């Protein structure tokens, strides 16, 4: 039982990582006022690029992950062009991007024969001698590279967002693009580049799934995890650290499900499978409930295209 518990906790970060990274990328975009529904699609781009780059280079998974981030960022320029430059409805553009990426990745995966090709990927790193400490060693010092980097990444992004001039301008663009524009901030450039930066993180989440987790590409390998990341953004009310907490909660559920089954503990099958979605719904209701009265954390101009000198 004790071992079951330790294994469960030790495996949680690996399942939480894609949720956390994708949610962080989305928070970045949405704090700049761009409602980003593309996560599921951009994660697929990251996942395919990660496997494709590893196979093409015959190894170097760390480099492949960086390539995946760049590819995700490049594909997201299509979304940024549609929403920021052409001011297309962000919901429709986002959904269209998801379907586009699903088709594109399936097509390219087939064309280059990257499908069903196992890769070595990145594995666990034991930080010796800390990894030898009972319980704590297994949980905290025997994880993969990306999991170790998550706290620094979150710290860095949060720091930039809340404690730097760039972050202040980014948030201003998301709260009131008109005022930012009047203050001399280039709203279009800020939004365009933020979408690219945020999508790089979403792509990292996708690459984590294929390069660190499954170590194989199949069509639609992300299996809806992008949508859960989207719900996490609302759960976190656009705050990075809260998103990490929410991601850990989902990771813990996903890691617990097979372990409870493997231990032969009798819990109805479909109840377990339903659990993450029940939690998603519960959290949304809780957020909507607690929002009444107090000020909302939602960026003021979320989902609104900015047109200079346009009257609303």
């Amino acid at each position: 039982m004790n071992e079951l518990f330790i294994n469960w906790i030790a495996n949680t970060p690996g399942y939480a990582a894609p949720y956390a990274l994708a949610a962080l990328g989305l928070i970045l975009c949405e704090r700049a006022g761009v409602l980003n529904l593309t996560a599921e699609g951009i994660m697929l781009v990251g996942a395919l690029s990660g496997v494709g780059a590893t196979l093409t280079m015959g190894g170097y998974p760390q480099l492949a992950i960086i390539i995946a981030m760049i590819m995700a960022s490049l594909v997201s320029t299509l979304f940024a062009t549609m929403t920021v430059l052409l001011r297309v409805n962000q919901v429709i553009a986002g959904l269209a991007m998801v379907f586009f990426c699903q088709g594109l990745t399936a097509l390219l995966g087939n064309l280059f024969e990257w499908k069903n090709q196992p890769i070595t990927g990145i594995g666990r790193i034991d930080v010796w001698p800390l990894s030898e400490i009972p319980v704590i060693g297994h949980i905290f010092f025997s994880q993969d590279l990306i999991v170790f980097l998550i706290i620094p990444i979150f710290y860095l992004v949060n720091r930039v967002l809340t404690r730097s001039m760039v972050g202040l301008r980014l948030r201003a663009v998301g709260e009131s693009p008109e005022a930012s524009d009047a203050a001399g901030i280039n709203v279009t450039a800020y939004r365009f580049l933020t979408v690219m930066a945020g999508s790089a993180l979403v792509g990292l989440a996708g690459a984590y799934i294929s390069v660190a987790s499954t170590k194989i590409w199949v069509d639609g390998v992300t299996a809806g995890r992008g949508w859960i990341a989207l719900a996490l953004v609302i759960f976190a009310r656009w705050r990075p650290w809260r998103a990490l907490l929410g991601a850990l909660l989902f990771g813990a559920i996903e890691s617990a499900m097979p372990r409870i089954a493997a231990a032969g503990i009798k819990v109805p099958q479909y109840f377990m499978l339903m659990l993450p979605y029940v939690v998603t719904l519960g959290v949304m209701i809780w957020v909507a409930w607690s929002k009444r009265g107090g000020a909302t954390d939602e960026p003021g101009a979320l989902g609104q295209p900015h047109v200079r000198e346009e009257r609303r």
Partner: protein
Amino acid sequence: MRSNWWLKIAAVATVAVGMMSGSAFADDAGFSLKAKPKIAIIMYGAKNDGGWTQAFEEARERMEKDLGMKIAYVENVDENAAKITPPVEKFIKKGYNIIIGTAFGYSDTFLALSKKYPDVAFLNGSGTTNGPNLQAFYGRTYESQYLCGMVAGAMSKTGKLGFVGANPYGVVNWTVNGFEMGAKLSNPKATTTAIFIGTWADPVKERAAAEALIDGGADVIGQHVDTPTPQIVAQERGVYGTGHHRDLSEFAPKATLCSSVWYWDRYLTPEIKKIMAGGWKPNPYGAFPTIKEGPTDIILNKNLVPADVVTKVMAERQALIDGKEIYAGPIVDVNGKEQVSAGKVLDDAGLWKMDWYVPGVITQK
């Protein structure tokens, strides 16, 4: 005189009933093609999906040789009428008159199409609908998985086997039970812990399940899901596995002991010859061929499995071909309830609705 009068009425009535059910007479003659045969396969996934659909693609290539004709195909046809109907109708317009489907979700659409095109023969893999020119087919995968279980039981050191399944319904449950019964043949103390991940292809969930099973002490991982992920995890963790759909040793040469595989051409080639011969009568309950007819079989990885185990497994395979029944009574389930009584064999209806597990299977249910 009196008896003669009754006889006349009976004769008239028989003729009248016969005339009224004219279509029944036509059915008795069976289905015959009106033009020269042209075959097309509607594939559910991509032909290189590494599993279910690829098994059909490999069968298609062998069938082209055996039948001496080109067989057309279309890939990635989702399980909804709007996706299925256009390619099928396009093929029919071009003169194709034997259409082979490959998915459970094609069942209703194929039934509708078979009524609309009575001169076209329809076959559907893992389908559930049948008609005068439509026949569903599937294989008795519990036989091949039973043999995989034998191998797993023989190769396991801990006696703890794991199994990653998709959803807990008939077609998966019978493989889990078959696997465990086969394992018991090699090691009477063997148990099978089955995890159902709730989907056919999600490598993240498959990996999570396989890792949880291995952490729990399982040292052979069986599977009835669509991707080779459980085998890859087994190889990473230095334990064994048994595959499904195709020979998965290409993904995990050091782990995959054997695979339960499809040879669809072994069923389809003779069935298509029957259609071509004329007077084809589809089974009203669908075709459900055994390992003897050959669409399901086992492929052993002889680099890993010792010769004495191979000999035993092949002897049991021969016993199945000679008519041994796996679901022959008496069988009690894990709760001690009798499911198949002594001297009886579980019928097909019982197989399809199987919702119980044999002792030694550990699940959440």
